[in-house]
Protein backbone atom coordinates (compact mmCIF):
# COMPACT_ATOMS: atom_id res chain seq x y z
CA UNK A 1 0.00 0.00 0.00
CA UNK A 2 2.74 2.44 0.97
CA UNK A 3 4.65 1.62 -2.20
CA UNK A 4 1.56 2.31 -4.25
CA UNK A 5 1.06 5.72 -2.67
CA UNK A 6 4.71 6.49 -3.20
CA UNK A 7 4.48 5.48 -6.84
CA UNK A 8 1.45 7.67 -7.35
CA UNK A 9 3.01 10.68 -5.75
CA UNK A 10 6.20 10.28 -7.75
CA UNK A 11 4.47 9.53 -11.03
CA UNK A 12 1.25 11.45 -10.76
CA UNK A 13 0.85 12.12 -14.46
CA UNK A 14 1.78 8.55 -15.35
CA UNK A 15 -0.97 7.40 -13.01
CA UNK A 16 -3.49 9.56 -14.84
CA UNK A 17 -2.23 8.19 -18.13
CA UNK A 18 -2.62 4.63 -16.89
CA UNK A 19 -6.16 5.23 -15.69
CA UNK A 20 -7.27 7.11 -18.78
CA UNK A 21 -5.71 4.53 -21.11
CA UNK A 22 -7.52 1.79 -19.23
CA UNK A 23 -10.82 3.59 -19.75
CA UNK A 24 -10.06 4.11 -23.43
CA UNK A 25 -9.28 0.41 -23.85
CA UNK A 26 -12.50 -0.58 -22.15
CA UNK A 27 -14.74 1.89 -23.94
CA UNK A 28 -13.29 1.20 -27.34
CA UNK A 29 -13.89 -2.53 -27.13
CA UNK A 30 -17.17 -2.92 -25.32
CA UNK A 31 -20.25 -3.61 -27.41
CA UNK A 32 -18.50 -4.97 -30.45
CA UNK A 33 -20.24 -7.75 -32.39
CA UNK A 34 -19.24 -11.32 -31.55
CA UNK A 35 -18.04 -12.12 -35.07
CA UNK A 36 -15.30 -9.56 -34.64
CA UNK A 37 -14.00 -11.06 -31.40
CA UNK A 38 -11.39 -13.19 -33.13
CA UNK A 39 -9.98 -10.51 -35.47
CA UNK A 40 -9.97 -8.08 -32.60
CA UNK A 41 -8.10 -10.51 -30.39
CA UNK A 42 -5.63 -10.98 -33.18
CA UNK A 43 -5.26 -7.25 -33.72
CA UNK A 44 -4.75 -6.63 -30.02
CA UNK A 45 -2.17 -9.39 -30.04
CA UNK A 46 -0.26 -7.64 -32.82
CA UNK A 47 -0.37 -4.43 -30.78
CA UNK A 48 1.05 -6.15 -27.74
CA UNK A 49 4.11 -6.73 -29.93
CA UNK A 50 4.95 -3.10 -29.16
CA UNK A 51 7.26 -4.68 -26.61
CA UNK A 52 9.68 -4.91 -29.53
CA UNK A 53 10.50 -1.26 -28.93
CA UNK A 54 11.97 -2.36 -25.61
CA UNK A 55 13.93 -5.12 -27.30
CA UNK A 56 15.39 -2.59 -29.73
CA UNK A 57 16.36 -0.33 -26.84
CA UNK A 58 18.12 -3.28 -25.19
CA UNK A 59 20.21 -3.82 -28.29
CA UNK A 60 20.96 -0.13 -28.78
CA UNK A 61 22.15 0.15 -25.20
CA UNK A 62 24.14 -3.07 -25.22
CA UNK A 63 27.90 -3.01 -25.13
CA UNK A 64 29.08 -4.64 -28.41
CA UNK A 65 31.32 -6.85 -26.33
CA UNK A 66 28.53 -8.08 -24.08
CA UNK A 67 27.55 -11.11 -26.09
CA UNK A 68 24.95 -12.38 -23.67
CA UNK A 69 22.93 -9.16 -23.74
CA UNK A 70 23.33 -8.89 -27.49
CA UNK A 71 22.17 -12.46 -28.03
CA UNK A 72 19.18 -12.10 -25.71
CA UNK A 73 18.31 -8.78 -27.29
CA UNK A 74 18.62 -10.27 -30.76
CA UNK A 75 16.25 -13.10 -29.90
CA UNK A 76 13.90 -10.65 -28.27
CA UNK A 77 13.79 -8.52 -31.43
CA UNK A 78 13.21 -11.59 -33.61
CA UNK A 79 10.37 -12.85 -31.43
CA UNK A 80 8.87 -9.38 -31.10
CA UNK A 81 8.83 -8.71 -34.82
CA UNK A 82 7.32 -12.13 -35.51
CA UNK A 83 4.53 -11.14 -33.16
CA UNK A 84 4.07 -7.77 -34.84
CA UNK A 85 4.32 -8.77 -38.50
CA UNK A 86 2.58 -12.10 -38.11
CA UNK A 87 -0.11 -10.55 -35.94
CA UNK A 88 -1.05 -7.80 -38.34
CA UNK A 89 -0.84 -10.11 -41.34
CA UNK A 90 -3.10 -12.73 -39.78
CA UNK A 91 -5.59 -10.10 -38.72
CA UNK A 92 -5.64 -8.74 -42.21
CA UNK A 93 -6.27 -12.19 -43.66
CA UNK A 94 -9.10 -12.83 -41.22
CA UNK A 95 -10.73 -9.53 -42.04
CA UNK A 96 -10.51 -10.26 -45.74
CA UNK A 97 -12.87 -13.15 -45.02
CA UNK A 98 -15.46 -10.76 -43.69
CA UNK A 99 -15.69 -8.41 -46.57
CA UNK A 100 -18.78 -8.42 -48.72
CA UNK A 101 -18.37 -10.14 -52.03
CA UNK A 102 -20.03 -8.72 -55.10
Amino acid at each position, binding site marked *: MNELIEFISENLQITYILILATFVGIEVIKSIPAVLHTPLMSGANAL*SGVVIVGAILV*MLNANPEDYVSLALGFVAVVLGIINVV*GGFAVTNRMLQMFKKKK
Partner: protein
Amino acid sequence: MDILLSIIYLVATVTFIVGLKLLGHPETAKKGNITAALGMGLAIFGAIFLSKENVPNIIYILIALALVVGGVIGWLIAIKVEMTKMPELVSLFNGFGGASAALIGLVEFGNINAASEATIVATIISGVVIGAITFSGSLVAWGKLNGSLKSVVKLPQYNLINNLFIIGIIAFASYLVIQGTGNPLVAYALLALGLVYGVLFVLPIGGADMPVVISLLNSLTGIAAAITGVLYDNMVMLVGGILVGSAGIILTVAMCKAMNRTLGSVIFGNFGGAAVADGVNKTLGTITNTTPSDSAIMMNYATNVIIVPGYGLAVAQAQHVIHELEELLTEKGVNVKYAIHPVAGRMPGHMNVLLAESNVDYSLLVEMDDINPQFNNADVVLVVGANDVVNPAAHNDPASPIYGMPILDVENAKHIIVNKRSMNAGYAGIENELFYNSKTSMLFGDAKAALTELVSELKGM
Protein backbone atom coordinates in the same frame (compact mmCIF):
# COMPACT_ATOMS: atom_id res chain seq x y z
CA MET B 1 14.45 13.17 -24.84
CA ASP B 2 14.40 13.96 -28.50
CA ILE B 3 11.28 15.92 -29.37
CA LEU B 4 10.87 14.29 -32.77
CA LEU B 5 10.92 10.85 -31.19
CA SER B 6 8.35 11.97 -28.62
CA ILE B 7 6.04 13.12 -31.35
CA ILE B 8 6.52 9.89 -33.29
CA TYR B 9 5.59 7.89 -30.22
CA LEU B 10 2.60 10.15 -29.65
CA VAL B 11 1.38 9.65 -33.18
CA ALA B 12 1.90 5.90 -32.90
CA THR B 13 -0.13 5.82 -29.69
CA VAL B 14 -2.98 7.66 -31.36
CA THR B 15 -2.92 5.23 -34.29
CA PHE B 16 -3.21 2.37 -31.81
CA ILE B 17 -6.31 3.88 -30.23
CA VAL B 18 -7.90 4.80 -33.53
CA GLY B 19 -6.95 1.41 -34.97
CA LEU B 20 -8.63 -0.44 -32.12
CA LYS B 21 -11.72 1.72 -32.50
CA LEU B 22 -11.95 1.01 -36.20
CA LEU B 23 -11.37 -2.70 -35.61
CA GLY B 24 -14.61 -2.77 -33.66
CA HIS B 25 -16.84 -2.19 -36.70
CA PRO B 26 -17.15 -4.67 -39.56
CA GLU B 27 -16.91 -2.02 -42.26
CA THR B 28 -13.85 -0.27 -40.93
CA ALA B 29 -12.00 -3.19 -39.37
CA LYS B 30 -9.47 -3.59 -42.16
CA LYS B 31 -8.63 0.06 -42.14
CA GLY B 32 -8.16 -0.13 -38.39
CA ASN B 33 -5.69 -2.97 -38.70
CA ILE B 34 -3.66 -1.11 -41.30
CA THR B 35 -3.73 2.11 -39.26
CA ALA B 36 -2.36 0.35 -36.20
CA ALA B 37 0.25 -1.47 -38.29
CA LEU B 38 1.49 1.80 -39.77
CA GLY B 39 1.75 3.31 -36.32
CA MET B 40 3.71 0.32 -35.13
CA GLY B 41 6.10 0.63 -38.07
CA LEU B 42 6.59 4.28 -37.24
CA ALA B 43 7.32 3.52 -33.59
CA ILE B 44 9.86 0.84 -34.52
CA PHE B 45 11.53 3.14 -37.00
CA GLY B 46 11.72 5.93 -34.44
CA ALA B 47 13.07 3.63 -31.75
CA ILE B 48 15.88 2.46 -33.98
CA PHE B 49 17.06 5.75 -35.42
CA LEU B 50 16.18 8.38 -32.88
CA SER B 51 16.65 6.83 -29.43
CA LYS B 52 20.40 6.93 -29.22
CA GLU B 53 23.33 8.42 -31.01
CA ASN B 54 26.76 6.97 -31.62
CA VAL B 55 25.65 3.38 -31.67
CA PRO B 56 28.26 1.11 -33.29
CA ASN B 57 27.27 0.03 -36.77
CA ILE B 58 27.45 -3.63 -35.90
CA ILE B 59 24.44 -3.14 -33.63
CA TYR B 60 22.39 -1.59 -36.39
CA ILE B 61 23.33 -4.49 -38.61
CA LEU B 62 22.26 -6.98 -35.97
CA ILE B 63 18.94 -5.21 -35.45
CA ALA B 64 18.29 -5.14 -39.17
CA LEU B 65 19.13 -8.82 -39.40
CA ALA B 66 16.80 -9.65 -36.53
CA LEU B 67 14.00 -7.62 -38.07
CA VAL B 68 14.38 -9.23 -41.47
CA VAL B 69 14.62 -12.77 -40.12
CA GLY B 70 11.69 -12.36 -37.74
CA GLY B 71 9.64 -10.36 -40.19
CA VAL B 72 9.96 -12.95 -42.92
CA ILE B 73 9.18 -15.80 -40.56
CA GLY B 74 6.11 -14.01 -39.18
CA TRP B 75 4.88 -13.08 -42.63
CA LEU B 76 5.32 -16.56 -44.05
CA ILE B 77 3.57 -18.27 -41.17
CA ALA B 78 0.75 -15.77 -41.33
CA ILE B 79 0.01 -16.17 -45.02
CA LYS B 80 0.65 -19.90 -45.26
CA VAL B 81 -1.48 -21.17 -42.44
CA GLU B 82 -5.02 -22.45 -43.06
CA MET B 83 -7.85 -20.16 -42.04
CA THR B 84 -9.16 -22.62 -39.51
CA LYS B 85 -5.81 -22.74 -37.72
CA MET B 86 -5.84 -19.04 -36.94
CA PRO B 87 -6.65 -19.13 -33.26
CA GLU B 88 -3.67 -21.29 -32.44
CA LEU B 89 -1.51 -19.03 -34.54
CA VAL B 90 -2.58 -16.00 -32.56
CA SER B 91 -1.65 -17.95 -29.46
CA LEU B 92 1.79 -18.75 -30.84
CA PHE B 93 2.47 -15.14 -31.80
CA ASN B 94 1.29 -13.99 -28.43
CA GLY B 95 3.71 -16.39 -26.78
CA PHE B 96 6.55 -14.83 -28.76
CA GLY B 97 5.58 -11.39 -27.56
CA GLY B 98 5.64 -12.64 -23.98
CA ALA B 99 9.03 -14.26 -24.52
CA SER B 100 10.36 -10.99 -25.88
CA ALA B 101 9.24 -9.18 -22.72
CA ALA B 102 10.83 -11.86 -20.54
CA LEU B 103 14.14 -11.62 -22.39
CA ILE B 104 14.22 -7.85 -22.02
CA GLY B 105 13.69 -8.34 -18.31
CA LEU B 106 16.54 -10.85 -18.18
CA VAL B 107 18.98 -8.42 -19.77
CA GLU B 108 17.93 -5.54 -17.57
CA PHE B 109 18.21 -7.74 -14.50
CA GLY B 110 21.93 -7.83 -15.17
CA ASN B 111 22.05 -4.06 -14.79
CA ILE B 112 20.47 -4.03 -11.35
CA ASN B 113 22.81 -2.89 -8.63
CA ALA B 114 22.56 -1.83 -5.04
CA ALA B 115 21.65 1.71 -6.09
CA SER B 116 18.67 0.67 -8.21
CA GLU B 117 15.33 2.03 -7.15
CA ALA B 118 12.74 -0.40 -5.86
CA THR B 119 10.33 0.65 -8.64
CA ILE B 120 12.88 -0.31 -11.28
CA VAL B 121 13.58 -3.67 -9.67
CA ALA B 122 9.86 -4.34 -9.38
CA THR B 123 9.21 -3.58 -13.05
CA ILE B 124 12.10 -5.78 -14.19
CA ILE B 125 11.04 -8.71 -12.06
CA SER B 126 7.40 -8.51 -13.04
CA GLY B 127 8.41 -8.22 -16.69
CA VAL B 128 10.36 -11.48 -16.45
CA VAL B 129 7.63 -13.36 -14.60
CA ILE B 130 4.64 -12.13 -16.62
CA GLY B 131 6.51 -12.59 -19.89
CA ALA B 132 7.43 -16.16 -18.93
CA ILE B 133 3.87 -17.00 -17.92
CA THR B 134 2.41 -15.74 -21.19
CA PHE B 135 5.10 -17.54 -23.16
CA SER B 136 4.62 -21.00 -21.72
CA GLY B 137 0.87 -20.56 -21.28
CA SER B 138 0.44 -19.53 -24.89
CA LEU B 139 2.53 -22.46 -26.10
CA VAL B 140 0.38 -24.90 -24.14
CA ALA B 141 -2.77 -23.29 -25.54
CA TRP B 142 -1.29 -23.54 -29.01
CA GLY B 143 -0.50 -27.21 -28.48
CA LYS B 144 -4.00 -27.93 -27.28
CA LEU B 145 -5.63 -26.21 -30.19
CA ASN B 146 -3.52 -27.82 -32.85
CA GLY B 147 -4.07 -31.21 -31.31
CA SER B 148 -0.54 -32.08 -30.23
CA LEU B 149 -1.56 -31.74 -26.59
CA LYS B 150 -4.80 -33.62 -26.55
CA SER B 151 -5.60 -34.53 -23.00
CA VAL B 152 -6.74 -32.27 -20.23
CA VAL B 153 -4.20 -32.90 -17.50
CA LYS B 154 -5.70 -32.15 -14.16
CA LEU B 155 -3.46 -32.65 -11.16
CA PRO B 156 -5.48 -33.50 -8.10
CA GLN B 157 -6.39 -30.24 -6.37
CA TYR B 158 -4.93 -28.30 -9.27
CA ASN B 159 -6.76 -25.10 -8.35
CA LEU B 160 -5.22 -25.15 -4.90
CA ILE B 161 -1.76 -25.99 -6.24
CA ASN B 162 -1.90 -23.24 -8.86
CA ASN B 163 -3.02 -20.64 -6.39
CA LEU B 164 -0.32 -21.59 -3.91
CA PHE B 165 2.22 -21.52 -6.70
CA ILE B 166 1.38 -18.02 -7.85
CA ILE B 167 1.27 -16.76 -4.29
CA GLY B 168 4.71 -18.26 -3.82
CA ILE B 169 6.03 -16.45 -6.89
CA ILE B 170 4.58 -13.15 -5.72
CA ALA B 171 6.08 -13.59 -2.27
CA PHE B 172 9.49 -14.42 -3.70
CA ALA B 173 9.34 -11.44 -6.08
CA SER B 174 8.31 -9.06 -3.28
CA TYR B 175 11.19 -10.33 -1.17
CA LEU B 176 13.60 -9.60 -4.02
CA VAL B 177 12.23 -6.10 -4.52
CA ILE B 178 12.57 -5.27 -0.85
CA GLN B 179 15.89 -6.94 -0.16
CA GLY B 180 17.53 -6.25 -3.52
CA THR B 181 19.67 -8.84 -5.22
CA GLY B 182 22.88 -9.04 -7.14
CA ASN B 183 22.81 -12.64 -8.21
CA PRO B 184 21.94 -13.01 -11.92
CA LEU B 185 20.94 -16.62 -11.35
CA VAL B 186 17.89 -15.35 -9.51
CA ALA B 187 16.59 -13.98 -12.80
CA TYR B 188 16.73 -17.42 -14.35
CA ALA B 189 14.97 -18.86 -11.32
CA LEU B 190 12.16 -16.32 -11.77
CA LEU B 191 12.01 -17.16 -15.45
CA ALA B 192 11.71 -20.86 -14.68
CA LEU B 193 9.01 -20.29 -12.09
CA GLY B 194 7.01 -18.20 -14.52
CA LEU B 195 7.33 -20.83 -17.22
CA VAL B 196 6.15 -23.58 -14.89
CA TYR B 197 3.20 -21.53 -13.70
CA GLY B 198 2.13 -20.79 -17.26
CA VAL B 199 1.97 -24.52 -17.98
CA LEU B 200 0.15 -25.29 -14.74
CA PHE B 201 -2.34 -22.53 -15.42
CA VAL B 202 -3.38 -23.57 -18.91
CA LEU B 203 -3.03 -27.35 -18.72
CA PRO B 204 -6.23 -28.10 -16.77
CA ILE B 205 -8.41 -25.96 -19.03
CA GLY B 206 -10.41 -27.71 -21.74
CA GLY B 207 -9.32 -27.29 -25.34
CA ALA B 208 -12.57 -25.67 -26.33
CA ASP B 209 -12.00 -22.89 -23.84
CA MET B 210 -8.69 -21.98 -25.38
CA PRO B 211 -9.94 -18.88 -27.26
CA VAL B 212 -10.84 -17.35 -23.91
CA VAL B 213 -7.50 -18.33 -22.43
CA ILE B 214 -5.62 -16.90 -25.39
CA SER B 215 -7.46 -13.63 -25.04
CA LEU B 216 -6.55 -13.55 -21.36
CA LEU B 217 -2.89 -14.29 -22.04
CA ASN B 218 -2.94 -11.65 -24.73
CA SER B 219 -4.10 -9.14 -22.19
CA LEU B 220 -1.21 -10.24 -19.95
CA THR B 221 1.31 -9.64 -22.74
CA GLY B 222 -0.07 -6.14 -23.03
CA ILE B 223 0.53 -5.61 -19.34
CA ALA B 224 4.07 -6.95 -19.71
CA ALA B 225 4.65 -4.43 -22.51
CA ALA B 226 3.28 -1.62 -20.33
CA ILE B 227 5.60 -2.63 -17.51
CA THR B 228 8.54 -2.53 -19.88
CA GLY B 229 7.31 0.90 -20.91
CA VAL B 230 7.49 2.09 -17.30
CA LEU B 231 11.02 0.71 -17.10
CA TYR B 232 12.22 2.69 -20.12
CA ASP B 233 9.93 5.63 -19.47
CA ASN B 234 8.62 4.96 -22.96
CA MET B 235 5.13 6.24 -23.63
CA VAL B 236 4.20 4.20 -26.67
CA MET B 237 4.92 0.95 -24.87
CA LEU B 238 3.19 2.15 -21.76
CA VAL B 239 -0.02 3.37 -23.34
CA GLY B 240 -0.09 0.70 -26.05
CA GLY B 241 0.42 -2.02 -23.48
CA ILE B 242 -2.29 -0.72 -21.18
CA LEU B 243 -4.70 -0.44 -24.10
CA VAL B 244 -4.14 -4.06 -25.03
CA GLY B 245 -4.34 -5.04 -21.40
CA SER B 246 -7.67 -3.43 -20.70
CA ALA B 247 -9.19 -4.15 -24.10
CA GLY B 248 -8.09 -7.78 -23.72
CA ILE B 249 -9.81 -8.16 -20.38
CA ILE B 250 -13.04 -6.74 -21.75
CA LEU B 251 -12.79 -8.96 -24.79
CA THR B 252 -12.21 -12.01 -22.60
CA VAL B 253 -15.29 -11.22 -20.56
CA ALA B 254 -17.31 -10.59 -23.73
CA MET B 255 -16.27 -13.97 -25.12
CA CYS B 256 -17.28 -15.73 -21.94
CA LYS B 257 -20.60 -13.92 -21.95
CA ALA B 258 -21.33 -14.96 -25.54
CA MET B 259 -20.88 -18.58 -24.41
CA ASN B 260 -22.96 -17.97 -21.30
CA ARG B 261 -20.03 -18.72 -19.00
CA THR B 262 -18.16 -16.80 -16.39
CA LEU B 263 -14.44 -16.20 -16.55
CA GLY B 264 -14.12 -18.03 -13.25
CA SER B 265 -15.80 -21.15 -14.57
CA VAL B 266 -13.46 -21.18 -17.56
CA ILE B 267 -10.33 -20.89 -15.45
CA PHE B 268 -11.39 -23.10 -12.59
CA GLY B 269 -13.05 -25.53 -14.94
CA ASN B 270 -16.70 -26.42 -14.75
CA PHE B 271 -17.64 -28.22 -17.90
CA GLY B 272 -15.13 -27.28 -20.60
CA GLY B 273 -13.44 -30.23 -22.27
CA ALA B 274 -13.73 -33.22 -20.03
CA ALA B 275 -17.28 -32.73 -18.90
CA VAL B 276 -19.51 -35.76 -18.71
CA ALA B 277 -22.89 -35.86 -20.34
CA ASP B 278 -25.57 -34.76 -17.96
CA GLY B 279 -28.93 -36.46 -17.60
CA VAL B 280 -28.17 -39.11 -20.20
CA ASN B 281 -30.54 -41.39 -18.39
CA LYS B 282 -33.55 -39.24 -18.83
CA THR B 283 -35.94 -40.71 -21.36
CA LEU B 284 -36.39 -38.05 -23.96
CA GLY B 285 -38.51 -40.02 -26.38
CA THR B 286 -37.65 -41.64 -29.65
CA ILE B 287 -35.69 -40.38 -32.56
CA THR B 288 -36.55 -40.52 -36.25
CA ASN B 289 -33.89 -41.53 -38.75
CA THR B 290 -33.70 -40.29 -42.28
CA THR B 291 -31.57 -41.01 -45.34
CA PRO B 292 -29.73 -38.70 -47.71
CA SER B 293 -32.24 -39.37 -50.44
CA ASP B 294 -35.26 -38.61 -48.28
CA SER B 295 -33.57 -35.44 -47.09
CA ALA B 296 -32.79 -34.49 -50.67
CA ILE B 297 -36.43 -34.88 -51.66
CA MET B 298 -37.59 -32.80 -48.75
CA MET B 299 -35.22 -29.98 -49.55
CA ASN B 300 -35.90 -30.14 -53.27
CA TYR B 301 -39.54 -29.31 -52.74
CA ALA B 302 -39.00 -26.70 -50.09
CA THR B 303 -39.33 -22.95 -50.66
CA ASN B 304 -37.17 -21.75 -47.79
CA VAL B 305 -34.22 -23.70 -46.40
CA ILE B 306 -32.02 -22.50 -43.57
CA ILE B 307 -28.67 -24.17 -42.95
CA VAL B 308 -27.31 -24.12 -39.41
CA PRO B 309 -23.58 -24.87 -39.42
CA GLY B 310 -21.77 -25.88 -36.24
CA TYR B 311 -18.51 -27.19 -34.92
CA GLY B 312 -18.97 -30.55 -36.66
CA LEU B 313 -18.89 -28.86 -40.06
CA ALA B 314 -15.43 -27.55 -39.27
CA VAL B 315 -14.25 -30.91 -37.93
CA ALA B 316 -15.43 -32.69 -41.07
CA GLN B 317 -14.00 -29.90 -43.28
CA ALA B 318 -17.32 -29.96 -45.10
CA GLN B 319 -17.44 -26.25 -45.92
CA HIS B 320 -17.00 -26.87 -49.65
CA VAL B 321 -19.70 -29.53 -49.90
CA ILE B 322 -22.18 -27.40 -48.06
CA HIS B 323 -21.50 -24.54 -50.43
CA GLU B 324 -22.12 -26.89 -53.34
CA LEU B 325 -25.40 -27.98 -51.75
CA GLU B 326 -26.47 -24.40 -51.26
CA GLU B 327 -25.69 -23.48 -54.88
CA LEU B 328 -27.52 -26.53 -56.16
CA LEU B 329 -30.62 -25.68 -54.16
CA THR B 330 -30.51 -22.06 -55.24
CA GLU B 331 -30.36 -23.17 -58.87
CA LYS B 332 -33.47 -25.21 -58.26
CA GLY B 333 -35.23 -22.10 -57.03
CA VAL B 334 -34.97 -22.82 -53.33
CA ASN B 335 -34.29 -19.86 -51.06
CA VAL B 336 -31.24 -20.81 -48.97
CA LYS B 337 -29.64 -18.97 -46.05
CA TYR B 338 -27.10 -19.76 -43.38
CA ALA B 339 -27.95 -19.05 -39.75
CA ILE B 340 -24.80 -17.95 -37.94
CA HIS B 341 -24.78 -18.29 -34.17
CA PRO B 342 -22.14 -16.05 -32.59
CA VAL B 343 -20.45 -18.90 -30.74
CA ALA B 344 -21.00 -21.75 -33.15
CA GLY B 345 -17.73 -23.59 -33.59
CA ARG B 346 -14.80 -23.06 -31.31
CA MET B 347 -13.88 -19.45 -31.83
CA PRO B 348 -16.00 -16.36 -32.39
CA GLY B 349 -16.55 -15.90 -36.10
CA HIS B 350 -15.48 -19.49 -36.74
CA MET B 351 -18.39 -20.13 -39.12
CA ASN B 352 -17.84 -16.87 -41.00
CA VAL B 353 -14.21 -17.72 -41.55
CA LEU B 354 -14.96 -21.32 -42.47
CA LEU B 355 -17.67 -20.52 -44.98
CA ALA B 356 -15.74 -17.63 -46.44
CA GLU B 357 -13.00 -20.14 -47.24
CA SER B 358 -15.36 -21.89 -49.63
CA ASN B 359 -16.48 -18.53 -51.09
CA VAL B 360 -19.99 -18.57 -49.73
CA ASP B 361 -21.63 -15.23 -50.49
CA TYR B 362 -21.32 -13.08 -47.39
CA SER B 363 -24.87 -11.78 -47.73
CA LEU B 364 -26.26 -15.30 -47.23
CA LEU B 365 -24.78 -15.47 -43.73
CA VAL B 366 -27.46 -14.14 -41.39
CA GLU B 367 -26.72 -13.30 -37.78
CA MET B 368 -28.75 -14.94 -35.02
CA ASP B 369 -30.92 -11.96 -34.11
CA ASP B 370 -31.91 -11.41 -37.72
CA ILE B 371 -32.56 -15.02 -38.64
CA ASN B 372 -34.52 -16.05 -35.57
CA PRO B 373 -37.82 -14.49 -36.68
CA GLN B 374 -37.40 -16.22 -40.07
CA PHE B 375 -37.46 -19.80 -38.79
CA ASN B 376 -41.27 -19.57 -38.75
CA ASN B 377 -41.27 -19.41 -42.53
CA ALA B 378 -38.62 -22.07 -43.08
CA ASP B 379 -39.78 -25.33 -44.59
CA VAL B 380 -36.59 -27.21 -43.79
CA VAL B 381 -33.76 -26.43 -41.41
CA LEU B 382 -30.59 -28.40 -41.99
CA VAL B 383 -28.44 -28.56 -38.87
CA VAL B 384 -24.91 -29.67 -39.73
CA GLY B 385 -22.67 -30.57 -36.82
CA ALA B 386 -24.25 -28.04 -34.51
CA ASN B 387 -25.59 -29.01 -31.14
CA ASP B 388 -25.43 -26.58 -28.22
CA VAL B 389 -26.37 -23.59 -30.32
CA VAL B 390 -29.73 -25.18 -31.18
CA ASN B 391 -30.42 -26.76 -27.79
CA PRO B 392 -33.85 -25.67 -26.50
CA ALA B 393 -32.71 -26.41 -22.95
CA ALA B 394 -31.22 -22.92 -23.08
CA HIS B 395 -34.80 -21.66 -23.10
CA ASN B 396 -36.67 -24.10 -20.97
CA ASP B 397 -34.40 -25.97 -18.54
CA PRO B 398 -33.21 -23.70 -15.74
CA ALA B 399 -30.98 -26.51 -14.46
CA SER B 400 -29.04 -26.74 -17.71
CA PRO B 401 -25.54 -25.30 -17.79
CA ILE B 402 -26.43 -23.39 -20.96
CA TYR B 403 -29.68 -22.02 -19.57
CA GLY B 404 -30.07 -18.41 -20.62
CA MET B 405 -27.73 -18.58 -23.61
CA PRO B 406 -29.41 -17.16 -26.71
CA ILE B 407 -29.91 -19.92 -29.29
CA LEU B 408 -31.17 -20.35 -32.83
CA ASP B 409 -34.90 -21.09 -32.65
CA VAL B 410 -34.88 -23.92 -35.19
CA GLU B 411 -37.85 -25.56 -33.47
CA ASN B 412 -40.12 -23.04 -35.14
CA ALA B 413 -39.43 -24.46 -38.61
CA LYS B 414 -41.70 -27.02 -40.29
CA HIS B 415 -39.04 -29.74 -40.56
CA ILE B 416 -35.62 -30.11 -39.03
CA ILE B 417 -32.88 -32.38 -40.40
CA VAL B 418 -29.93 -32.87 -38.07
CA ASN B 419 -26.67 -34.27 -39.35
CA LYS B 420 -24.15 -35.59 -36.83
CA ARG B 421 -22.24 -38.80 -36.36
CA SER B 422 -23.96 -40.16 -33.26
CA MET B 423 -26.08 -39.12 -30.35
CA ASN B 424 -22.99 -37.77 -28.60
CA ALA B 425 -23.11 -34.45 -26.86
CA GLY B 426 -21.40 -31.26 -28.00
CA TYR B 427 -19.11 -28.87 -26.18
CA ALA B 428 -21.34 -28.38 -23.17
CA GLY B 429 -21.68 -32.14 -22.72
CA ILE B 430 -25.46 -32.20 -22.44
CA GLU B 431 -28.37 -33.97 -24.08
CA ASN B 432 -30.37 -32.14 -26.71
CA GLU B 433 -34.15 -32.49 -26.68
CA LEU B 434 -34.36 -31.15 -30.20
CA PHE B 435 -33.21 -34.49 -31.60
CA TYR B 436 -36.30 -36.13 -30.06
CA ASN B 437 -38.71 -33.55 -31.43
CA SER B 438 -41.38 -35.06 -33.69
CA LYS B 439 -40.43 -32.57 -36.43
CA THR B 440 -36.79 -33.66 -36.36
CA SER B 441 -35.18 -36.35 -38.49
CA MET B 442 -31.62 -37.47 -37.79
CA LEU B 443 -29.21 -37.94 -40.68
CA PHE B 444 -26.35 -39.81 -39.05
CA GLY B 445 -22.84 -39.78 -40.51
CA ASP B 446 -19.76 -37.66 -40.92
CA ALA B 447 -20.83 -34.26 -42.24
CA LYS B 448 -18.66 -34.40 -45.35
CA ALA B 449 -19.78 -37.91 -46.34
CA ALA B 450 -23.45 -37.31 -45.62
CA LEU B 451 -23.58 -33.99 -47.44
CA THR B 452 -21.73 -35.43 -50.44
CA GLU B 453 -24.37 -38.12 -50.73
CA LEU B 454 -27.10 -35.55 -50.30
CA VAL B 455 -25.64 -33.47 -53.11
CA SER B 456 -25.38 -36.40 -55.50
CA GLU B 457 -28.98 -37.41 -54.76
CA LEU B 458 -30.09 -33.85 -55.44
CA LYS B 459 -28.17 -33.75 -58.69
CA GLY B 460 -30.07 -36.77 -59.88
CA MET B 461 -33.45 -35.13 -59.37
